[in-house]
């Protein structure tokens, strides 16, 4: 359980680069199937529902809710000191992603809490994190 030297920064590839580029420009985007309309994250080579390779991207509202969350009390990597919250966020449009809830104390996070995306620079990339919607907002 020692803090292994894990490479932390996302390494965008041909499939995920558009997602990270959109984040850099302050937009949260999901992949959208041109055939069945399914909206999904993370980006992949085809629609995971109908396997169509005809994909586009769709801008998301950035609003969602906390589906579940955990509080790291132990530091796994010195670059990311505990405590911090990791949440599975369910976006209003359906896709889910793992992210952080920031802008409030870890103890204030709750399941079903409404959140909105907040882009933050870290590890040399723009990360889509989330903050309480209509509350918190601490810089």
């Amino acid at each position, binding site marked *: 359980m020692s803090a292994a030297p894990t490479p932390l920064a996302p390494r965008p590839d041909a499939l995920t680069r558009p997602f990270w580029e959109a984040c850099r420009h302050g937009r949260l985007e999901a992949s959208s199937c041109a055939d069945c309309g399914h909206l999904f994250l993370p980006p992949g080579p085809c629609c995971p529902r109908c396997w169509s390779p005809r994909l586009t991207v769709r801008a998301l509202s950035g609003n969602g809710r906390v589906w*579940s969350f955990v*509080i*790291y009390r132990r530091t796994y990597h010195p670059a990311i000191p505990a405590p911090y919250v990791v949440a599975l966020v369910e976006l209003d449009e359906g896709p889910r992603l793992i992210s952080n809830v920031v802008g409030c104390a870890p103890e204030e996070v709750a*399941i079903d809490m409404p959140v909105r995306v907040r882009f933050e620079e870290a590890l040399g990339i723009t990360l889509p994190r989330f903050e309480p919607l209509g509350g918190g907002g601490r810089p």
Partner: protein
Amino acid sequence: MSRRAVIAGVGHTAFGKFPDRTAWDLEAAAAAAAVADAGLRPADVDGLLTDPGAVQGVLDGITPHFLRLGSQLGLDPTYTGSEILGGAGSVAIVERAALAVEAGLCEACLCVYGDRALSGAGAYGYGRGDEAAFGFFGAAGLHALAARRHMHRYGTRPEHLGEVAIAARAYAARVPHAQKRSVLDMDEYLASDPIVEPLRRLDCCLVSDGAAAVLVTTAERAADAPRPAIPILGHAQAHSLSTYASPDHFDALPAGRCGPAALGRAGLTPADVDVALLYDCFTIVVLLQLEAYGFCKKGESGPFVEGGRIGPGGSLPVNTSGGLLAEGYGGGMLHVIEAVRQLRGDAGDRQVADAEVALVSGHGLGMNTHATLVLGS
């Protein structure tokens, strides 16, 4: 009966911290013990399947694990391979061995798990691809998401997770080779450090150096074996690879599909199971599996385990050797071996009276993989 697969031999090393030993010599020792227990000689082994532990399986991706071990054991088998299914790997290779011997692809298939996770480079605090940027490290994070969700949805309390940890330690106190032999009480459990809330340190399994092996052959071949051969009555795998896209990924394990399939093949139901050996990387996984396998209703695993129901003397003995939480991290192979010991009547003062049916599970990766064995006596 023609070509019914049986487990004819079991063997394992001690589990703990052995910095002077390699995973390879641990695995060789476990292999030799399993083959001897089956009354066979090394030259009889014509199948080799391996479950490399996290340290070997993740970090050494160049030489396949089965090739290096097979070379060291001097084997030229007719059937071989390694399974990378995380914690489902050991149960899955025993299943593959059963299929292989029943199909006649080999006669005596050695199934080996081994690792030196405690003395080697830590492999459990790994980041998950792009999610590492959010600090989402280790298996604990994923399972804590599941635990939080279960608590929210069903009112499950920390004390319910504590029951699982306490039962494991109560059993392990009766197991001479267990890594953690001291008993645990609820106060000590609740005072355990939070790691990834809502999980505490004592919700997390041990990290171990050690190896375990079983020998799968046919009932016919095992007829003259020195020890009782244990028939593999049913087996199944089910997986949930879609992960977050599945609306209930953290609530409904693929065990819910695996259990009926494996028990159905055996013509049995959950009520027929005398002892359950459930993969227990974290306490929450035992609760989720009690529900998924139908030992209790959905959402009711917390109250179900109250009052020591899964502990010594309880009505559903679970992980009677202490499991990953207390016996040692045996990748799931120690669960298979404990099932064999219970069905042979070899389990000493933790023996479940009249044990005739055992269910063994393996669960792995991001709660993605699952495998089940149903063993008889």
